[in-house]
Each structure stands twice: as structure tokens, then as C-alpha cells.
């Protein structure tokens, strides 16, 4: 099920880590988007809403927005207010731009229309990023530097993955300029200093606009899961910059050797993978590097109902979001969570990534532990006995 345009816009906006996200919505939308984000960081609450009530439906929500802007400007120590307008103001026709223009504020304000009914979570993300282009500044280019585009602050293991990706880049002689959207307002403004935009999964429209406006080329790569995924990322960036780095020589197989017999046993495991754009890269890792058979792959881009296909498959492990727990339970198979939304696991250790070379080890460890510790396997055997 898709989270809709509002969720995508909220996630992209809240990725500007020192900005306030002011949702022009009734209470429930603000609760939902904020609650889902809070699973990633309970002490980073920077969102507020205009509390649209029946009164606003009748008389319009412009006054509430005006009041909220004045308060947000006063209360928050933040350089930027991002106004995300949801379904209700878009239907009743609030003139948001006029409201913003009518108040004198110390902070910068960017707004976007993000009615949930007007698109997917992905489209909300893309549109929100495009809205940020006007604040980007033409600046001197830093040699051998890249921006990464496609991240959200509430992606599973995002901080750990970025740390690993940055390490891989640094070892290749490449500096990471900005991560969009998981950076400060200042870093966002300085994004045009990068030599190259690397789009991972989403954010292509932003990369295109940055190419047009600032002349920054871009490449699109998969999420760097696994040894091969890591190499693909490094190769793509190195090739573009003419750096040349043979990652294969640096791969440490020792951790895998410790469990090579288990790897032998899970080879050929039929598996289904569901999630956002991460799913395709995950499936590639599982297939290419662990030898899993991918039975069903769903990237949730449309209303595709994957559940029946998964149920009708031979899948013995399911990779997905927290919302797949029920399906996994019904099929009596383990679930490995890796894609947004994840609300029944935490990810607080920033040295345990799923991405990159180190991520390949952590991910393999997680998969094996999930399989070996799966509580239902013995009861299943008892049932058959």
C-alpha cells in the first residue's frame, strides 16, 4: 500500500535536519506522518500542524496557517520552515502563497502542495525535492565530490548506511558534499558544489533540474547492498571521475568464511521481496550473492497486490516492511525487515549498516540469525509429526 504524496513530501521535508515541517492539515495527517518518523528518532520532533477543523473547512484554513507561521517563526530555533499542504487545504483552495507573503517572518519559508490524492509517496518525495532547488546557490565546485540523492531520515538504518557509503567514498578519494534529503539547510544550499549527483532509487527529477540549472551531471545507481552492489556504486562513481579503484581486492571474505556452511545451506532459498525502491537492490543481492531464488518482487509503485502471489509461491523467507509481519506469520516464515516503514524494530547503532561492504556482513548475519532463531520452526515440525 502506498503512503501517498503527503507522506512522501513530509519525509523529504523532514530530511532537512534543522528545518521545521509545518503541516497544513487536520490533526490526523500530522499524527500519522510524525508518528512514523518518530520510530527512527524519538527525540527529533520538529513537525507541527495547523489543526484544521470543521471551522477551517467552512471559513478556510488561511488564518490558521498564518497563526501557525507566526508561532513557528517565534518558537523554533531553525533557519527554515517547510509548509506541506495536505488534502484538505488543496480541496478547499487555501491560497497558501498569499498567506506566506502576508506575514513578515525571520525564517525562510518554502511551501509545497502535497495532497495525498494527487500522487504516490514517491511523487511527493520528488516534488518536495524540486521545491528545494530555488534555495540552492551557485557555488565553487569541490573536486571529486558527490551528492547522494534518494535518502529519507526515517529509512531503515539510514545513518549507518550513509556512514558506510561515506567511508567507501572517502577511501576512493571522493568526498560526500550533501545527502538529500538527510542534511542541514546549509548543506542543501551548498549542494551545487558537488561534481556529480548520485541518485539512488529516487530523486531523479531533482538531479535533472540541478543538471539544467547548475550543470551537475548525474548517474543513477541501485542501493549498494552486498559486495557486488558496493562495487557497482564505487565503479560508477570512479568511472565518472576517472579515479579507478578495484574494490574486489579490498573485499574481506573472512566474516563469510566463519559461516560458509550455513551459506551453503541457504543457497537456493525461495524468497519474496517487497518494499520501496530498496526492494530491487535487495533482491539483486539475495539472488546474486546468496543464491536465493526470487519468487516475487514488488516495489509498491502501483496498487499491485503482491500478497496472493507471495502466498502462492514457495517463499521460505520474506523481505519487507513491518506491515508484512502478518503475511509472514500466516505463511509461517520469517520476515527480514529492511524497507520503510519499520515500526517494530529499532536501528540506533550507526556502525551496523546494511549497505556497503560492512553492510553485506551485517545483512548476512541478520538473515542467518532470523532464520536460525525463527520461533515458529519447531512448532511447525511438531505439527507435522
Amino acid at each position, binding site marked *: *500500500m*502506498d*503512503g*501517498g*504524496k*503527503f*507522506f512522501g513530501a513530509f519525509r523529504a521535508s523532514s530530511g532537512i535536519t534543522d528545518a*521545521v515541517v509545518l503541516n497544513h492539515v*487536520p*490533526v*490526523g*495527517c*500530522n*499524527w*500519522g*506522518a*510524525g*508518528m512514523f518518523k*518518530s520510530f527512527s528518532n*524519538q*527525540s*527529533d*520532533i*520538529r*513537525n*507541527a*500542524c*495547523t*489543526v*484544521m*477543523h*470543521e*471551522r*477551517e473547512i*467552512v471559513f478556510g484554513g488561511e488564518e*490558521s496557517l498564518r*497563526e*501557525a507561521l507566526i*508561532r*513557528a517563526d517565534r*518558537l*523554533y*530555533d*531553525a533557519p527554515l520552515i517547510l509548509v506541506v499542504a495536505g*488534502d*484538505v487545504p488543496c*480541496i*478547499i483552495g487555501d491560497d497558501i502563497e498569499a498567506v506566506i507573503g502576508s506575514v513578515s517572518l525571520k525564517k525562510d519559508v518554502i511551501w509545497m502542495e502535497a*495532497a*495525498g*490524492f*494527487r500522487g504516490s*509517496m514517491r511523487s511527493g518525495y520528488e516534488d518536495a525535492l524540486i521545491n528545494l532547488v530555488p534555495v540552492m546557490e551557485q557555488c565553487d565546485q569541490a573536486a571529486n565530490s558527490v551528492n547522494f540523492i534518494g535518502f529519507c531520515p526515517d529509512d531503515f538504518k539510514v545513518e549507518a548506511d550513509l556512514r558506510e557509503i561515506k567511508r567507501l567514498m572517502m577511501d576512493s578519494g571522493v568526498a560526500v558534499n550533501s545527502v538529500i534529503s538527510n542534511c542541514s539547510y546549509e548543506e542543501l544550499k551548498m549542494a551545487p558544489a558537488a561534481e556529480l549527483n548520485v541518485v539512488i532509487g529516487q530523486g531523479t527529477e531533482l538531479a535533472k533540474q540541478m543538471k539544467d540549472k547548475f550543470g551537475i551531471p548525474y548517474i543513477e545507481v541501485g542501493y549498494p547492498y552486498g559486495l557486488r552492489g558496493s562495487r557497482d556504486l564505487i565503479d560508477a562513481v570512479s568511472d565518472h571521475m576517472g579515479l579507478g579503484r578495484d574494490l574486489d581486492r579490498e573485499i574481506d571474505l573472512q566474516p563469510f568464511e566463519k559461516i560458509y556452511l550455513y551459506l551453503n545451506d541457504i543457497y537456493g532459498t525461495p524468497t519474496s521481496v517487497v518494499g520501496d525502491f530498496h526492494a530491487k537492490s535487495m533482491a539483486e543481492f539475495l539472488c546474486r550473492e546468496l543464491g536465493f531464488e526470487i519468487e516475487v518482487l514488488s516495489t509498491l509503485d502501483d*496498487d499491485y497486490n503482491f500478497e496472493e502471489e507471495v502466498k502462492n509461491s514457495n517463499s521460505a523467507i520474506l523481505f519487507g516492511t*513491518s*506491515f508484512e*509481519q*502478518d503475511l509472514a506469520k500466516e505463511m509461517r516464515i520469517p520476515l527480514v525487515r529492511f524497507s520503510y516503514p519499520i*515500526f*517494530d524494530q529499532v536501528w540506533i547503532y550507526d556502525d551496523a549498516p546494511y549497505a556497503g561492504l560492512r553492510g553485506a556482513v551485517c545483512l548476512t548475519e541478520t538473515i542467518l540469525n532470523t532464520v536460525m532463531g525463527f520461533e515458529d520452526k519447531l512448532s511447525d515440525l511438531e505439527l507435522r509429526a
Partner: protein
Amino acid sequence: MQISLEMRDTPLDDTDELREIFRDHTLTGIFQTATWQYHRYCINCKLSGSVYAASEIEGAVPIIHGPSGCAFHQRLTPMRLYAPVYKLPCTNLDENDVIYGGESKLRDKVLEVYRRYKPSLILLLPTCVSGLIGDDISGISQDLKAQLPCSIIPIASEGFAHRSRESLDGLMQESAKSWKTSRAPDYEIRGCGQEEVMVSLVEQLMEEQDVVDKQVNIESFGRFRYGSQVDLREIKRIFNEIGIGINTTLLNCTVDDIKRAPAAELNIITRNRKAGKLMNTKFGTGYFRKWASHYGLDGIEKFFVEVGSKLGLEGEAEEIIQREKRQAMEELERYRKTFSKFEFAVSAQGFFFTPYIASIYARDLRLPLKYFCVSTQLLRSMNTSEKTIKMMIDNMQDVFDDWDFGFETVVNPSLDEMAEMAKGVDYLLSDRITPLIYGNRMMDVSAVSHLLFRTSFSGIVEFSRYLARNLHNGISEPSGDLILSKFHYDQLNYPIIEDPRCSASREMWSDMWSLGSAGGD
């Protein structure tokens, strides 16, 4: 929705009971503080209350009539973050539907849901979008009822029609008045989604029945909560002894059970008064409101005797309940002797039940109480006005004076004051209104204090047993090494961490809720 948890029919022994409480506290309670904390920044959608209520009904499937984003996040309804409503069909309204209407999508979705799940009941839950574009949801449900062998009911669950701050303020004031009269407040406020489901079921699903004497319905949300199920089982056991039968437990029941609800002579309601009154008007079913005054030894007795009285079983109820109470008192007497050796301070959240909790500690457990600490944090987090909070505190103190409790009431103690109080007593029983105080004899009772909110004597006895055992064995004091104690907390809004972003968001919510709710009921 279709998930049914098996209730354990066999009684639990003491060890089982406590183990189950801690198990439940650990496995499902893990989300509790996060949920409450997030309530200090905003409130959830009315739709989520309706989804939660629908999820209690076995054989019912709710359909969200709105954009996919509504269903996406409502699957995680705050009442049960530990058990998402995984299957939540949605009409996925898009821009086309906003312009031309979403009625055909709703029709198609209802037919699809019926084909797929064969439910006994489909609940149609409109969202802000379908509410604004004016889809004729009632008309569609009428049309489809003729085509499908299941009930189809629309629920008023549009998110923008939530309750207002003023209405909550009024409810709190009425609650404070009720402490003095022991009569449940009769103050109507707009529902938060659950009540809308209840009312719609009364209006559209329940059927005229031959009334069965001495049968009651019990309002009991909590299919997914251990504590609710145990409480319900105890009430049923005592009712059974009195000669009162349970017709059904609303909404923790099947669709057919709801249809047959009017067969009961009496409804025992807690929060959904509108539905109770409506059943009374429509079917003549009597209603009795269970309220905070029905906690504690005397309150529990009162509850069973009053219900018995309503059903002409006053004598039987008195006999049974006196026996039960006597047994409980005998057990309690043993623990009271242990308690009498110590001096205590107690901290509790300031809310509907606070005077009655004080009464349980002081009268039922006979705890030598030196201090009773009350926090108004929760009230403030719900933006209760200062005037109302003052009235609540004043009324509470009046009640304490009338009841002749000798303890000192301390309102909103600071962490230092709590520490000082703890030094002046043997034990501080804490419901976690402030950060954990280490180096003192603080006993965290937050996991087991809900035993005191049960409508049976066994909860109070069980709590006493737990407390006595801890006093006997000694407790491990919260240590200064606790990671939890290394954070700085917002002094007014524990457990919000001290962080300017969090504080600003909290203040934003407070301001905007006050401002935005002025048009509510």
C-alpha cells in the same frame, strides 16, 4: 478485524497472573510511553478510533474511503501499535475521484472486499477527502445491502470533525464535580471515532429482540489487551454467581452478537454513553454507567450491588459480593500488617481516577501514607485549561479532606522535591510522574498499578501481594548508572527529553490546538 485471541478459561494461579502482567507490560506495553509522548505534540485522527473499534469486532472488515495514505497510516492505530490492523482495504481515491466523485470506487471496493473476505459486516469509513467531496456513502451502503448477504454500515469518521479542546475541558470539569457526588459525569462530547462506530451499530445493525431477563451487555474494548480480558473474566464470574448472564461484550464480540445486543435487559457502559442512551430509546435497554467511583473495595461492592439492584437481584448481589469482599479483606489483612511497618509516599497521574486511587491506597491497603503526589502533566498535555486544572485539584483536596485522609497532597512536585519526600519515608511508590529517582527507596509500580483499576477484588489483592513481597524481599533501587537517568528531561512534560525542538513542537501544538479547536462542540 478477523483476529481472535483465545481467552484462557482456566483460572490463573498467582504466579501466572503476575507473569502474564509483566509479559503483557513488556511485549505490548513497549509502545506505551512513545504513544503518550507523541500525544503531547498532536492527537490522532478520528478515523483511527473507528478503525480500532472495527478491529475489535470478529467478522467485520472496515473499508477506508479515501486516498491510500489514510489507510497506509491508519493500519497503525495508536490504541494498538503492537498489533497493526494489517488488512485495511482502501478505495485509494485520486484526483479524478475528487473531481468526479469516488462512489463507483467505493461500490467496487465493497464488492471486492466481500468476495475476498466474506465478512459478516463491512464498515465504511469516510475520510476528510470523501467527506469534503460529498460522496453519498449512506446511499451506496443502502444499495449494496440489497446485493450482498452481509451488513454494510457507514460511520461518520471524517478526520476534520474531531472533538475540541473546550469539550475536553468541560469533561474534566464534570469529572471533578463527580468526585464529590460519586455520580458519573453526564457530559456529552463528540466521539473520537470509537463512539461513532458504537452509535452507528445501534442505529443500523442491532435488531429488535425478545429481552432475556437478567442478561447484560458489557462495554469492553480490549480484545487485544491482557488486562481487559482478565477483568472481564472476573466480572463474568461474579455476575454468574449472582445470577446475571452476559448477553455480549461490546465490541469484543461477533457481528451476530451485536445484532442480538438488544436481548439484554441492561447495558453496562463506560465511555460510550451516547450508544447506551440510544439503545435505551430505540430498544428500551436499560443502562448503567461504570465509572471511577466503582474502583476500590467499596466501589466494587457498589458496582455489583447497583447492577444487581437494576436487575432485581439486589439480595443475591449483596450476599455474593459480601462473601467475595470478606475473602479479599481476609487476604488483605495479612498484607496490611506488613504495610503498617513502613511509611509511604505515593505518586499518581492526575486524572479521572486519582481520588479513588488515593482511597485504595489509604483505605483498602491501609498504607501509612505521608505524601500523595499528583501530577497534572497529562491534563496539561491535553491542553486542559489552568482554570479547570485548579478546579480539579481543589475538588480533589476537598474530597481528601472529607474522607479524612491524613496525608499531605503535593501537586506537581519537582524532581528535587520528590527526592526530598522519598528521604522522609520508607518507600515512594511511583507511577513515573517524574524521572526515576535513584539512591532512594523508590518502587516503580507502573507495571502493576493497573491492577487497582479492575472491577474485582482480586486485582487489589494481587497488587497487595506484589507490594508485600517486594517489601519483604527488598527492592533494587534505581541506580545512578541507569542510562535512563542520564538524560535531561523537560521539567513540565516528563518524559519529553529536554530539547529545544521538542519544546517548541510541544508549545506549537498547545497553541494551535487551542486556536484551531474553537469551532468544535
